[in-house]
């Protein structure tokens, strides 16, 4: 697929559906004072964050949200988001900050319930930009069925940030007795990926480097918790789940092999990669197995459940392109091997260092 070099500044403006007016309109840009703890900060919190994320827990405006939970086990995670640009084809830092943390909770087999959101804003960020991000978080949280119940706001000097950094932490509830951890991986387990790989990384790369492809590559940023909850409900014997973010499939498999003390093997031809993503990777000398995703996971399930898992995954839009890619060979020194396109086995290693500039 031909790759066209494009003017770096020629991105189309992002269109937003929730076109509400910016609620803090007397200040077109974020000032240091918006993080100073005084009136301006309170105004920002009241009119922007509280307005967008409104729920009874957040409305208490206490130092901490008090969560009433059953006697079930909890999953708890945190993640920071520093993606540049803030808006990219298929998503933005706000929706990604919700999806990423929801997905981390899902990987522990939990039902995501509550998120926190911490904003580190660079002085001078247009208020409109902040509002777009907040609206996007609000919409993503609604879609995921989670509530943003606590948060924090800091403003740093001009030049000391990169527009906006976000952190979200999340709490989920575990409603089953399964152990979903790398240590629970068993010899013979089937390995599945929930969809085609590399879209997020290549979408970001394309915007950042001014590369344009014939068909637009959009990030795969999406929540996957509903699929996971479905698999659990159907009593699929899930042994391990892992979100495929930075480092891609190669890193996830190596981390699991290492933690489980197992040899894993996959087949290159079985790994789904969209044609345009593959072409872009070839052109830039990248391996799709090392490229980042934001709405994909790898599942290790008992061999007898592999076909059923595949069919269930394929029934959901977010995992319609799921595929069975390999298996756990057995207890051994940790190793991931790959059967290459021409049928020869080789090692699949983690990428060393950065493959791409900051992408999530």
């Amino acid at each position, binding site marked *: 697929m031909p790759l066209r*070099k494009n003017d*770096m500044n020629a991105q189309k403006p992002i269109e937003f559906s929730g076109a509400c007016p910016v609620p803090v309109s007397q200040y077109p840009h974020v000032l240091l004072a918006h993080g100073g703890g005084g009136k301006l900060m309170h105004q920002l919190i009241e009119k922007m964050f509280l307005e967008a994320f409104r729920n009874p827990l957040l409305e208490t405006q206490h130092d901490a949200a008090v969560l009433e939970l059953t006697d079930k086990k909890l999953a708890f995670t945190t993640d920071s988001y520093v993606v540049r640009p803030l808006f990219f084809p298929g998503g933005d830092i706000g929706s990604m900050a919700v999806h990423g943390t929801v997905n981390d909770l899902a990987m522990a087999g939990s039902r995501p319930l509550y998120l926190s959101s911490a904003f580190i804003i660079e002085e001078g960020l247009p208020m409109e930009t902040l509002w777009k991000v907040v609206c996007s978080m609000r919409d993503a949280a609604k879609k995921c069925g989670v509530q943003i119940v606590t948060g924090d706001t800091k403003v740093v000097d001009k030049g000391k940030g990169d527009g906006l950094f976000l952190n979200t932490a999340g709490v989920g509830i575990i409603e089953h007795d399964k152990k979903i951890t790398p240590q629970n991986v068993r010899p013979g387990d089937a390995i599945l990926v929930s969809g085609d790989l590399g879209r997020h990384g290549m979408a970001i790369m394309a915007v950042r*480097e001014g*590369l344009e492809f014939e068909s637009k590559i959009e990030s795969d940023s999406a929540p996957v918790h509903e699929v996971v909850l479905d698999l659990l409900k159907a009593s699929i014997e899930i042994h391990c789940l892992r979100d495929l973010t930075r480092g891609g499939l190669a890193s996830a498999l190596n981390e699991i092999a290492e933690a489980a003390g197992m040899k894993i093997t996959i087949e290159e031809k079985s790994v789904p990669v969209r*044609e345009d993503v*593959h*072409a872009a990777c*070839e052109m*830039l*000398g990248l391996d799709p197995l090392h490229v980042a995703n934001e709405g994909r996971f790898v599942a290790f399930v008992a061999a007898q459940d592999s076909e059923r898992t595949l069919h269930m995954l394929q029934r959901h839009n977010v995992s319609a392109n799921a595929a069975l890619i390999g298996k756990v060979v057995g207890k051994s020194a940790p*190793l991931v091997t790959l059967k*290459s*396109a*021409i*049928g*020869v*086995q*080789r*090692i699949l*290693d983690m990428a*060393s*260092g950065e493959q791409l*500039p900051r992408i999530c």
Partner: protein
Amino acid sequence: MKYLDEYRDAGMAQQFARELHRVTTQPWKIMEVCGGQTHAIVKFGIDELLPKEITLIHGPGCPVCVTPLEMIDKALEIATRPNIIFTSFGDMLRVPGSTTDLLSVKAKGGDVRIVYSPLDAVKLAEQNPAKDIVFFGVGFETTAPATAMAVYHAAQKGLKNFSMLISHVLVPPAIEALMSSPNCKVEGFLAAGHVCTVMGFEEYFPIAAKHRVPIVVTGFEPLDILQGVLMTVQQLESGRAEVENQYVRAVRRVGNQPAQELIKKVFKVVPRKWRGIGEIPQSGLGLSEEYAAFDAEKKFGVAESFVGESPECLSGLVLQGQIKPHNCPAFGAKCTPERPLGAPMVSGEGACAAYYRYRGQPDAVAKK
């Protein structure tokens, strides 16, 4: 993927492998010159399909790997100066100089940027008239036209704040130097397809004739390489030493003539030191007199330095095909892609990095 999967077909690969087993009657040592081919060989496991009599020797065709230490030091010196935007291709940023690397210069606040085309550096020069933009131009004949085009554009636009640190190298003089070395064990060459896309392959006829060595212009996909090896072995087995073209879908005998014209206009042929090999006469490109104003070495007056390589790094022997990467005692121990001692462990096209990445630790390689 169209135009790619066809050249990665497992069934066809097996057919080529069977034919190679059929025609091979004795040991042959064949060098693939280009690092891109080395990478494909190790990544797809092509060498494991070959008869045991055939040894592939990985040649010096990784431009990042052969860029001399002195040149990296010059790059580092320029990049640390104030008011500079220093640009290069990604891999160059991680190559260790004698004290540090470009990524570390960036971490300490230097403005070092990755570009995907030298023309992007020219664009930067237009956008930042108050800064000096330097492009570190490395590569073989394949990337030389793009570098030449950037200089040409900068001259057309009258840009005074753009210059280049040039370390371009040429393939045929390197093959000639390798064949003239008394230690040379190479009996046949796979010439680099992309270099020939630009330059054609007429330059190889005198080399093949003088050294009685078959040279087959070869592509980069698994089936290309297998066919290139088969054509070389067929020549060796029948006592021929000819120049043949496997990569007919991309390479013409005369190459890309407009690109050659541009190279001739912007560059002149100069002697060039190759990391790990030493100076090879008439083996590099430098800016011609007409474009001397764009020469960063002259513009910034960087001093010539003579620095020794790490004695633990045997990359010179690897680049000359005298040892395999895993035969180096530092391989995988003191030297890894995270902490490279020499350039072949840095670049994706470097033989050491390819072995480390796809064959793993020294024990795993030795077992193979």
